[in-house]
C-alpha cells in the first residue's frame, strides 16, 4: 500500500516535471512544429528526388546518395572543409583562450583591449572579406609589405592554391573576438578562492590552469567546440566572397577553396539540382550529427557543471 502510493507519487512528480518542462520549452516546440519541421522534411523528401527547383520533384529513391558516393568533387570539397576545421577551428579556439587568459589577468586597459579584440567581428562579412583580399594582395597588400620588411617570403595568398586556405584561416583568426569574449566571461566565473588555495599549496601556474581553470570553463569549451564544428562544416560566406571578389570561378584556384556548402549551393542554385544538393545536405547532417554526439559523449569526462548534483 505504502509502496504503491510512493510509486504513484514519484510517477505523478515525473509527469508534473514533464508538463512543466514542456511548458518551458514550448516556444521552441512551437517554432519546430510550425516553422522548422516542414522545410526540414521537405528537404529530406527532395533528397530522394530529382528536382530542378521549378518543376515537380521526381522520385528516384537513393540514386542521389549513390551518385554522391562516386562524386570526386564532393570528396574534394569535404577535404577542404575538414582542412579548415582542423587547421582553422581548433587553433582559433586555442588562440582565443590564450588571449582571454591574458586579458583575465588584472591588466590595465582591459576594456580597451576587449573592444579592440571584438572589433573585427563587428565589421560585416562583405566589408571584412573585401578588406582582407586587399590586405592579402601579393603586391600592395599590407601583409606582404610587412613580410617583405622582415625579409620573409611573400606568398601569392590569393592565387596560389597552396595558400588560399591558409589565407581564409588567417582571416578567421581575425574574427575570434566572439570566442575570446565568451571565454573571458566564463573565466569571470572561476572562483578566486580556488586559486588562493592552490597558491598556498604551491601549485605551478600550469597546474592551476589544468586543475582549476580548464575544468571551470569546460562548459564554454563544449559550447564553442560544438558550435564551431557545426559552423565550420557549413563554412560558406567568406569562401564564396573570396573567390568571387577575386574574379575567380566559384571554388577559387584549382578548386582549392571549394567548400562543402559552396559546392552544395552551386549544385542547388547554379546546376539546378536541388535533389542532389539536398542529399548532400543530409550526408553533411549525418556527419556533423555523429561528430556532435561523440563530443557530447566524451564531454562527460571533461566538462564540469557547477550546478551538477
Amino acid at each position, binding site marked *: 500500500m505504502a509502496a504503491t502510493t510512493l510509486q504513484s507519487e514519484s510517477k505523478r512528480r515525473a509527469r508534473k516535471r514533464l508538463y512543466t518542462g514542456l511548458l518551458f520549452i514550448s516556444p521552441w516546440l512551437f517554432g519546430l512544429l510550425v*516553422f522548422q519541421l516542414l522545410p526540414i522534411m521537405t528537404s529530406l523528401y527532395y533528397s530522394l528526388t530529382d528536382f530542378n527547383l521549378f518543376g515537380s520533384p521526381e522520385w528516384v529513391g537513393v540514386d542521389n546518395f549513390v551518385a554522391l558516393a562516386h562524386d570526386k568533387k564532393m570528396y574534394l570539397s569535404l577535404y577542404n572543409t575538414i582542412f579548415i576545421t582542423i587547421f582553422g577551428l581548433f587553433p582559433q579556439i586555442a588562440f582565443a583562450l590564450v588571449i582571454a587568459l591574458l586579458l583575465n589577468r588584472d591588466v590595465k586597459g582591459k576594456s580597451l583591449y576587449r573592444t579592440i579584440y571584438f572589433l573585427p567581428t563587428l565589421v560585416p562579412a562583405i566589408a571584412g572579406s573585401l578588406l582582407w583580399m586587399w590586405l592579402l594582395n601579393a603586391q600592395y597588400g599590407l601583409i606582404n609589405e610587412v613580410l617583405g620588411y622582415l625579409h620573409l617570403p611573400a606568398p601569392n595568398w590569393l592565387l596560389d592554391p597552396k595558400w588560399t586556405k591558409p589565407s581564409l584561416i588567417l582571416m578567421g583568426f581575425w574574427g575570434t573576438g566572439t570566442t575570446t569574449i565568451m571565454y573571458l566571461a566564463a573565466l569571470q566565473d572561476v572562483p578566486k578562492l580556488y586559486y588562493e588555495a592552490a597558491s598556498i599549496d604551491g601549485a605551478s601556474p600550469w597546474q592551476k590552469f589544468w586543475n582549476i581553470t580548464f575544468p571551470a570553463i569546460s562548459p564554454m569549451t563544449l559550447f564553442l567546440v560544438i558550435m564551431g564544428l557545426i559552423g565550420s562544416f557549413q563554412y560558406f560566406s567568406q569562401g564564396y566572397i573570396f573567390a568571387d571578389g577575386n574574379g575567380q570561378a566559384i571554388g577559387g584556384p584549382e578548386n582549392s577553396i571549394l567548400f562543402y556548402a559552396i559546392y552544395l549551393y552551386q549544385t542547388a542554385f547554379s546546376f539546378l539540382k536541388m535533389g542532389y544538393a539536398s542529399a548532400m545536405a543530409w550526408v553533411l547532417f549525418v556527419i556533423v550529427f555523429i561528430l556532435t554526439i561523440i563530443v557530447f559523449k566524451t564531454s562527460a569526462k571533461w566538462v564540469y557543471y557547477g550546478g551538477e548534483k
Partner: protein
Amino acid sequence: MSANPTQTVPHVRKLPTRSKAGRRVIREKIFAHTILIIVGLLFLAPFIWLVITSLKTENEIFTVPIKWWPDELQWKNYSDAISMIPFVKYTLNTILIALLSILGVVIITPMVAYGFSRIDFKGRNFLFFIMMGTIMLPFQVTMIPIYVMFNKMNLINSIWPLVLSSWFGTGIAYNVFLVRQFFMGIPHELSESAKIDGASEFRIYTQIIMPLAKPAVLTIGLFTFLGAWGDFQGPLIYLNDPEKWTLSIGLKQFLRENRVAWGPLMAAATLFTIPIVILYFFVQRKFIEGISITGMK
C-alpha cells in the same frame, strides 16, 4: 562581481616577500601587455586601414608602394556614400528589424534554456538533440521551402519572415545552447531550497534564475542585434520594396559590376561598422561580465 578581485589581490600580494614577488608580478604584467599590444595592433590594423582607405582618393588607394596617409582627407567619399543610398532610412529599417528580433529572442531563449537545463523531464535529452540537429542542416536546402511557407502566409515583402525566423527559426538553438551552458553552472541548492519552501518552477525561474540571467540575456540580445545588422541574404530575399531595405543591401550598391567606387565603398563600410562599435563600447562592460552569470564566487 568586480569587488571580489580587489579584495583578494592585496591579500595575495602580502604573502610572499615583497621584492621577489613584486618583480615577478611586474615581469608577468609586461609580458601580458606586450603580447596583448602586438596582437591587439594586428586586430586593429585592418580596421584602421579601412578608415584610412575611406579617406583616400582612388589613385591613392591603389598606389604602389602603399601610401599610408592621404595627401588630403577625402571627406567627399562620405558625402558620396551617404548620397548614393538613403542611409538614414536604411538604418532605421535595420534597427526596427533588429529590435523586434531581440524582443522575441530575449523572452523565448532563457525560458527554453531553463527547460533544457534545470527541469529534469523525460525525453529532455532527446528533444535537446533534435534542437541541435536542426542547425546541422545547411540553410541552402531549406531556404526555398521556408520561402514557400512565408509566401503562403502572405508575409513576403514584409519584415515578418526575418523577425519570425529569429524567434522561431533554427537559429534559436545557438542561443538556447549558450544560455543552457550557464544555467547548468548555477548550483542546484539555490532552486532546491526554494522548492522546499513551496515555490513553483515558474517562480524559481522568474525570481531566482532570471535575475542571475540578466547578463546572459544581454549577451544573446547583442548577438541577435549583430546578426540582424549584418544579415544580407535574408533582407534581400524577403524584402522587395526599396522602402523597406536594410543597410547591408545598401552596402552592396557600391559593388558595381564594371566599376567599383572604392572610396565611397570604404566610407560606407566604415559608416556601417561605426554604429555597432559605439553600441558595443557602451554595453561591453556589462556584456562581458555578462556572459558570466552565476555571480557567486
